[in-house]
């Protein structure tokens, strides 16, 4: 009797989640229909965004989101792993506890504050120091870096996003590393491996699926981040693959234009971008799940 009530309640609540996701999808679909009716799937790769002429395309924003989130992950993953390894393996308690506190504090900072910091501190530093440094180093020959210009760029947004996702990836990776059985680590040590070798070749290998999922969750956070990105990315409307130029993201364009969108097709185009973002997150999570299933043989 009590058991069936319990099952009914929890079942209903679980369904609620599915229904909500379904409704979000439905609303996004209905709201964006004019855009799909006008351009079909080519809306995704059209590059022009001109509200005055009524021309809309999503590619600059998709590219901006992927470029900034991808770069954020590239920067944040090694740093986060370093923090996680330090915390589980090497740091004495006197260092560990304050460091955990600081990392968790970073996760609690509102994103608008990150945005403010980006405007007042990071953007000038990117303009004055980071971009000239990269341009002068061998990295400057990479086609993703052009001529250094103003401080509001894809790079600035990437750096902010990296800092924002470090706490997530670091704390999840730390939990993953702590779940690796002690006898794995000791097995490597007993063979005359150094602590670093045991960490690198045995513990990290054992936890690779868990670390991968931490990275996917971090990437998901970066994809959806709006405020800090909007404040630092530069909000240009053209397609660019140059990290030294101002760009735009799916979240930023919606936040910037939805309130002022005058025409129906403009609103529909913005909602369509929201739908693409929703789908992108969904696909990313599915890929993450799939790969976790494949590499987790034996590991976490």
């Amino acid at each position: 009797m009590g058991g069936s009530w319990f099952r009914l309640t929890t079942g209903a609540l679980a369904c609620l989640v599915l229904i909500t996701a379904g409704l979000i999808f439905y609303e996004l679909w209905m709201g964006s229909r004019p855009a799909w009716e006008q351009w079909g799937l080519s809306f995704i790769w059209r590059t022009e965004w001109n509200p005055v002429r009524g021309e809309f395309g999503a590619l600059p924003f998709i590219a901006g989101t992927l470029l900034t989130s991808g770069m954020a992950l590239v920067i944040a993953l090694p740093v986060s792993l370093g923090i996680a390894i330090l915390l589980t393996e090497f740091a004495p308690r006197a260092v560990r506890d304050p460091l955990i506190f600081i990392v968790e504090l970073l996760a609690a900072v509102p994103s608008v504050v990150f945005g403010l910091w980006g405007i007042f501190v990071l953007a000038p530093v990117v303009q004055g120091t980071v971009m000239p440094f990269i341009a002068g180093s061998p990295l400057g020959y990479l086609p993703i870096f052009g001529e250094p210009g103003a401080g509001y760029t894809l790079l600035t947004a990437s750096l902010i996003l990296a800092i924002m996702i470090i706490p997530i990836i670091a704390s999840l990776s730390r939990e993953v590393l702590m779940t690796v059985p002690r006898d794995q680590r000791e097995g490597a040590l007993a063979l005359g491996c150094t602590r670093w070798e045991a960490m690198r070749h045995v513990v990290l290998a054992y936890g690779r699926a868990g670390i991968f999922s931490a990275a996917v969750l971090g990437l998901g956070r970066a994809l959806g981040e709006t405020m800090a990105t909007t404040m630092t990315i530069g909000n240009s409307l053209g397609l660019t693959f140059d990290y030294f130029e101002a760009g735009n993201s799916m979240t930023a364009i919606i936040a910037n234009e939805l309130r002022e969108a005058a025409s129906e097709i403009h609103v529909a185009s913005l909602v369509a971008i929201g739908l693409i973002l929703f789908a992108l997150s969904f696909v990313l999570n599915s890929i993450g799940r799939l790969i976790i299933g494949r590499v987790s043989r034996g590991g976490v």
Partner: protein
Amino acid sequence: MMPERMQTKDLRVYFGKTEAVKGVDMEIRPGAVTAIIGPSGCGKTTFLRSLNRMHDNTRSARVTGHVYLGDRDIYNGGMNPVELRIRVGMVFQRPNPFPTMSIRENITFAPRRHGMRRRSDLQDLVEEVLRQAALWDEVKDRLDDPATGLSGGQQQRLCIARALAVRPKVLLMDEPASALDPTATQRIEELIFDLKAEYTIAIVTHNMQQAARVSDYTAFFYMGELIEFGETDVIFTNPKEAQTEAYITGRFG
């Protein structure tokens, strides 16, 4: 390659304020099997793990006294832990092959870290230690399969082969058969018998028949102290201490 002697002098191990090993003087003779027996919590595993400095990585643990490998004091500046553990290998209670590596990689992993690079050398080593561990015939056709596909007993023999691959002088075994079925246990015991010509072996066991079958010397631990040490025959047939007799006849523990 000669097996080496180990010796402890006034060895004490503390976890926080608790003294788990209380001043043990003991010899582990070269080329023989020494069994360490005693009831749960008597400090036998703690003692064994101090012989290859496994407590170094436990924050609360502290070791005092002396442990000698040959004539070098492994704790007081005589040897760093990496160098020590290459000479003093360890097999754990539960088989712990590295699940992300193949059978072959489990064996070659440590030798490669220590500088063995040539393919043919590594190949020879894999065969040699798998033969020593009496596992070669069972796995020679699937060396590149994941190690976790083996049965528990095979995994434990792989772990023994893996320990032999760094060419230790001493092999420490912490209840190596306690997670295995009787057939697999018997194979491990036969293996221990075969290995003692070339290695000094210390084995912790809670199974007294096992101690009687495989060992030349037996040490009885109780409450962190070494109560009695002697030839296995004597300990089991004619112990000097009343506590030893009570334990081996099954009156406690």
